[in-house]
C-alpha cells in the first residue's frame, strides 16, 4: 500500500509540475463543449426565400411562418440570386396554378427546414382544433439538438483526454528507462497498475466534476437526473480510458504511435456511442457497439441527464464499465510481465 501511495503521489506531483498538461486535461474539454454548444445551439436560422408571381396570400403565409420573403418580378432573376447563394429557395406558380419550389439543395438540413416551413405555411388551412395537443415524455419543446447529444460528448471527452494522457505518461515511463528502474525495486506489477489508477483517477475525478458542473451550470445543458450518478458514470468511463490507455501504450513505442490509436480505438467508439443514429446501419454491424466502452457510458449519461434514470436503470452500464476497467487493468499487469516476470 505504501508503494501504491508513493506512486500515486509521484504522478500527482508530476501533474502539478506540468501545468500545460493539467490545463489540457481540465480545460480543453470545457473549451470544446462550449464551441459545440455555440455551433449547434445558436440562433434559429432564418430562411431567405424568393417568390415570383406568387399570390400575395401565400406570400403572407410564408412570411407568418418565419421566412424572409423577397418578391421578384420574374422567375429568371430569382433563380439568378438562388445561384449566387443569396436565397435558400425560390417558389413560383406554374401554369396549372400549382406552386413550384426550387431548392438550393447543397445542405440537406436547410432543404428540410424549407420544406417544413412551407408545410407549416400551407397548413394554415387546417383549423387549430384539429391539431393534437403535444406532451413530452422526456425532454421539452425547447430542447435543442445539443441537449440530446451533449451527454454523449461529455462522456466522449472524459474518455478521450484521459486515454491520451494515461497512454502517453505510461509510455514515457517505459521509454525514459524509469520503468526498468522501477522494476529493479521491490514494487509489484499490480502495484504499478494500481498506483497509476489511483494517481490518475484523482485527476479523472477532478475532470469529471469540472465537466459535469460546467456543462450543466454554465452551458445550461438539459439535465433532469442526479448529478451524483452523472459523476459516477463519468468517473467509471475515465477509469476505463485510463486502463485502456496504459494497456495499449505497451504496444506503442513512441508518442506518435499513441496518436495512431485514436482513429483505431477512439473514433469508432464515437460512431457507436449514439452521436449518430445507428438505426440505418446493418443490424449485424450495430452489434459491434457491445465491445465499446463509450457506448455504455453514453447510454447511461443520456439516461441520467435526459430521462432522469436512477440506479436501477444505469446499473448495468456501470457494471459493464467496471468490468472493462478490471479486464484492462488485469491485462496490463500481464503485459508488464514482458519486462519482469515477477
Amino acid at each position: 500500500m505504501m508503494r501504491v501511495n508513493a506512486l500515486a503521489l509521484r504522478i500527482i506531483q508530476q501533474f502539478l509540475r506540468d501545468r500545460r498538461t493539467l490545463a489540457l486535461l481540465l480545460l480543453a474539454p470545457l473549451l470544446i463543449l462550449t464551441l459545440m454548444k455555440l455551433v449547434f445551439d445558436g440562433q434559429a436560422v432564418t430562411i431567405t426565400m424568393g417568390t415570383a408571381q406568387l399570390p400575395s396570400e401565400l406570400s403572407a403565409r410564408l412570411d407568418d411562418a418565419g421566412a424572409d420573403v423577397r418578391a421578384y418580378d420574374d422567375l429568371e432573376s430569382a433563380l439568378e440570386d438562388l445561384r449566387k447563394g443569396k436565397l435558400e429557395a425560390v417558389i413560383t406558380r406554374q401554369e396549372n396554378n400549382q406552386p413550384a419550389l426550387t431548392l438550393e439543395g447543397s445542405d440537406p438540413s436547410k432543404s428540410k427546414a424549407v420544406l417544413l416551413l412551407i408545410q407549416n405555411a400551407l397548413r394554415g388551412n387546417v383549423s387549430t382544433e384539429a391539431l393534437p395537443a403535444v406532451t413530452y415524455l422526456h425532454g421539452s419543446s425547447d430542447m435543442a439538438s445539443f441537449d440530446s447529444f451533449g451527454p454523449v460528448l461529455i462522456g466522449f471527452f472524459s474518455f478521450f483526454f484521459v486515454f491520451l494522457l494515461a497512454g502517453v505518461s505510461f509510455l514515457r515511463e517505459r521509454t525514459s528507462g524509469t520503468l526498468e528502474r522501477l522494476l529493479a525495486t521491490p514494487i509489484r506489477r499490480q502495484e504499478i497498475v494500481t498506483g497509476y489508477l489511483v494517481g490518475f483517477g484523482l485527476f479523472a475525478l477532478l475532470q469529471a466534476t469540472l465537466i459535469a458542473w460546467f456543462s450543466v451550470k454554465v452551458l445550461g445543458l438539459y439535465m433532469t437526473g442526479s448529478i451524483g450518478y452523472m459523476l459516477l458514470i463519468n468517473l467509471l468511463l475515465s477509469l476505463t480510458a485510463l486502463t485502456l490507455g496504459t494497456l495499449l501504450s505497451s504496444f506503442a513505442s513512441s508518442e506518435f504511435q499513441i496518436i495512431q490509436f485514436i482513429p483505431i480505438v477512439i473514433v469508432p467508439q464515437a460512431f457507436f456511442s449514439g452521436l449518430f443514429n445507428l438505426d440505418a446501419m446493418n443490424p449485424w454491424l450495430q452489434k459491434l457497439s457491445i465491445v465499446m466502452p463509450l457506448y455504455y457510458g453514453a447510454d447511461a449519461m443520456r439516461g441520467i441527464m435526459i430521462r432522469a434514470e436512477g440506479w436501477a436503470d444505469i446499473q448495468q452500464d456501470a457494471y459493464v464499465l467496471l468490468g472493462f476497467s478490471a479486464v484492462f487493468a488485469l491485462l496490463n499487469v500481464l503485459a508488464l510481465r514482458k519486462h519482469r516476470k515477477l
Partner: protein
Amino acid sequence: MSVLQSETVSAEPAVVISGVTRSFGQQRIIDDVSLTIPRGELFGLLGPSGSGKTTLVKLMTGIDKADKGSVSMLGVPLPKLEMLHRFGYMAQSDALYMELSGRQNMMFFGKLYGLNRQSLRQRIDETAALVDLSEHLHKPVTAFSGGMKRRLSLAIALLHQPEVLVLDEPTVGIDPVLRKSVWKELKILAKNGTTVIVTTHVMDEAEKCDRLGLIRDGHLIAVDSPASIIASTGCGSIEEAFIALSQQQRFGGQHDES
C-alpha cells in the same frame, strides 16, 4: 542493519553465476559466463563498449533473465521478488523523473524500498551529502547537469543501505575530485561488508577494485586482482594486460574464469 544481517549468514557469496548465456535475437551477448563474487568485495567489471557489461549486471540482479544457466544472490536463486530489497541498482542511463525535484525523486524511490518517513529523511540527507548534492535537492531534475543526475542516481541506489550494490558506470560525467571521493566511499562501504559491483571502462578506476573481471564479446577473459592480472600477463598496466588477454582469447580460445 544490512551489515549485521550479512554477518550472520556470511557463508553464502554475494553473487554466484554459473553457465549463464543471454542472446538478443541471433546474437549471443553473454556466452556461458561463470563467476563468483564473495561478500564485501569491491568487484570491477571492465570491458569495451558493447562487450556485455550492462547485460551481465542486469542478469546478476535478476532484472533480466538468462536464457541458460543459473544466477543466485546471497544464496537465493534468482529471480525472486524479495531479493529486490537487498540490492541497490544504478542504471547506466539515468532513470529519473525529470519534472520532479531531486528530493521528490529520492522520496519516491525510498518509499518503494519501504523506508519510513524518519529514516528516509535521514538517509536522504546522508546520501545527498555523500554525492555533494545537498544544496541542489530542491531543484527539478531538468535543471541538473549530466554529472548531477549521475550523482542523484547514485544517491538513490545507496538510500536503503543494500547488502549488494550494483553500479553501472557510476562515475561517468563526474569530475575528478568528486570521483575520488565517490571511490573512497565505495571502498568504505566494501570494508563495512557491502558487496560493491561496478562496471567501468576507466583503467585507473579498475585498479582500485579488489578483483576485476575483464569482459570481451560476452566472455570473461580474466577474473583476478588487478595486480595478479598485470603480473600474469607480464604487462605494465591493466590496459596492456587487457589487450594482451584479448589477443590470447582470440587465438587460444581460452575464456571464462581462469
